[in-house]
């Protein structure tokens, strides 16, 4: 039985006085099994974050519905932990208080304190319980954010480009950490990213999304054994396969931004003599 069900979801922003209504994506259906790690991969503007927000209940679908364990999503709730790209920690609370803040609604004070310590230990931050967010590095903040989301014991963990703003070394460390956490807690994870390698490294399945019209292009199974080696042949083969589809999508986005004569293969518009076209009018 599927755990997270996304059923024919469409998101359309209504048009205003001078703007046309804009459909980000339509007819997206996806079911995620319990304990599965699924990545949503796509170029910017394909609505992958919007889709995640709809699952989180922070945004509403124009059509269709999302359900968790057959219970329809009507708004945000503690059954879905969300990790944002920015850590979104309350600056006036220390690390432990930030995690306890998520637990106050469900647990007694004593339990909340114990759970906060337990989950901060899981992300290796036991030494920083009393630190304030501004004293932490970007990676540490994101780990607090992960601990905070996990401590609520959510049905699903939703991660919205959680490592997008981090440097490469920190990201590699956090990839290991997320794998360790996922194996240990056995949570269902929905992970938004624009990084192909990241998605292959972490997920069981990769949902490749495209733009105009927005929607699912292809779903890839990742049959590789963990821990995965980015330099292995299977890994790079999959990477190439995904890239070949993604490239077309990216080109579409770039054309929209830079004009119709943009070609990603031929060094693009910037270096093309055609870019001077119309200069002398």
């Amino acid at each position, binding site marked *: 039985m599927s755990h997270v069900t996304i059923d024919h979801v469409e998101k359309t922003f209504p048009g205003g006085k001078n703007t046309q209504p804009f459909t980000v994506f339509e007819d997206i259906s996806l079911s995620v099994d319990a304990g599965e790690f699924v990545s949503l991969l796509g170029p910017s503007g394909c609505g992958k974050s919007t889709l995640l927000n709809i699952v*989180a*209940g*922070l945004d509403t679908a124009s059509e269709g519905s999302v359900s968790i364990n057959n219970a329809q999503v009507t*708004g*945000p*709730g*503690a059954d*879905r*932990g*969300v990790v*944002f790209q*920015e850590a*979104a920690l*309350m*600056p*006036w609370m220390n690390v432990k208080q930030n995690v306890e*803040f*998520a637990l106050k*609604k*469900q647990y007694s004070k004593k339990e909340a304190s114990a759970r906060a310590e337990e989950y901060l230990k899981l992300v290796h931050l036991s030494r920083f319980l009393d630190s*304030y*967010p*501004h*004293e932490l590095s970007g990676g540490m903040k994101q780990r607090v954010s992960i601990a*905070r*989301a996990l401590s*609520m014991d959510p049905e699903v963990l939703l991660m919205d480009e959680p490592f997008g703003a981090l440097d490469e070394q920190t990201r590699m460390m956090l990839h290991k950490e997320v794998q360790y956490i996922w194996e240990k807690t056995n949570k269902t994870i929905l992970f938004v990213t624009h990084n192909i390698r990241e998605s292959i490294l972490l997920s069981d399945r990769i949902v490749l999304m495209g733009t105009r019209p927005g929607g699912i292009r292809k779903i890839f199974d990742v049959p590789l054994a963990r821990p995965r080696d980015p330099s292995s042949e299977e890994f790079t083969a999959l990477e190439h396969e995904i890239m070949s589809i993604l490239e077309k999508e990216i080109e579409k986005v770039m054309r929209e931004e830079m004009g119709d004569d943009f070609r990603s293969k031929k060094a693009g518009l910037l270096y093309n003599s055609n870019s001077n076209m119309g200069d002398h009018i």
Partner: protein
Amino acid sequence: MFPSPLGSVQQLYIGLFDTGILRVALFESLERIGFGFLLALLIGGLLGVLLGVSKLADETLGSLVIALQSVPSIVWLPIALILFQGGGGAILFVVVLGATWPMTMNMRMGMKNVQPILMRAAKTMGYTGSELVWRVMIPAAIPNVLTGARLAWAFGWRALMAAELIGRGGLGRTLMDARDFYNMDLVVSIMIIIAVIGLLVEYFIFSKIERRVLSRWGLSTAS
């Protein structure tokens, strides 16, 4: 006729420790500003929260607050004197009016400038409605509250002095009394007291709180 430094210090000593007129006046003024300031924080804070939370209130009361803010509060004194039959009530009214608006505007701004991501994060943890206001918006607005309080104090203190010059009791009245006796030394000694109070409040209250708040909120690098 002209004040001398020595004479001023002498008057300061006599007024504070000998006759006690300055001491009595000082405590009366401090009592007024203290009470007026707290009242302004309360009213301004609540009003600011209301303006920050409710769009309707902001669009209706908001411009009224800006209009009231641009009226120097001492202008209210004639009405207040009639309203409160003279006396301390009128002066307190002017002080509160002077101090409330900067507090309101800063509280409002703090509420409006809360990072949306913090609100979204809190929502995913099951917080809704008024809990979001109390647990996220107001704490996030604390640095602005501090600015508001500082301005409220400054405006209130000025309003108090102006009101006392015309009204009854306190340092302002004593200042006018000293002028009536051509005692310029006493006038200057009172001005010294006014300046010192400002200095003490700044250094021992606002600076200290500000340093603590800013470092905790991660807004200053000097922590």
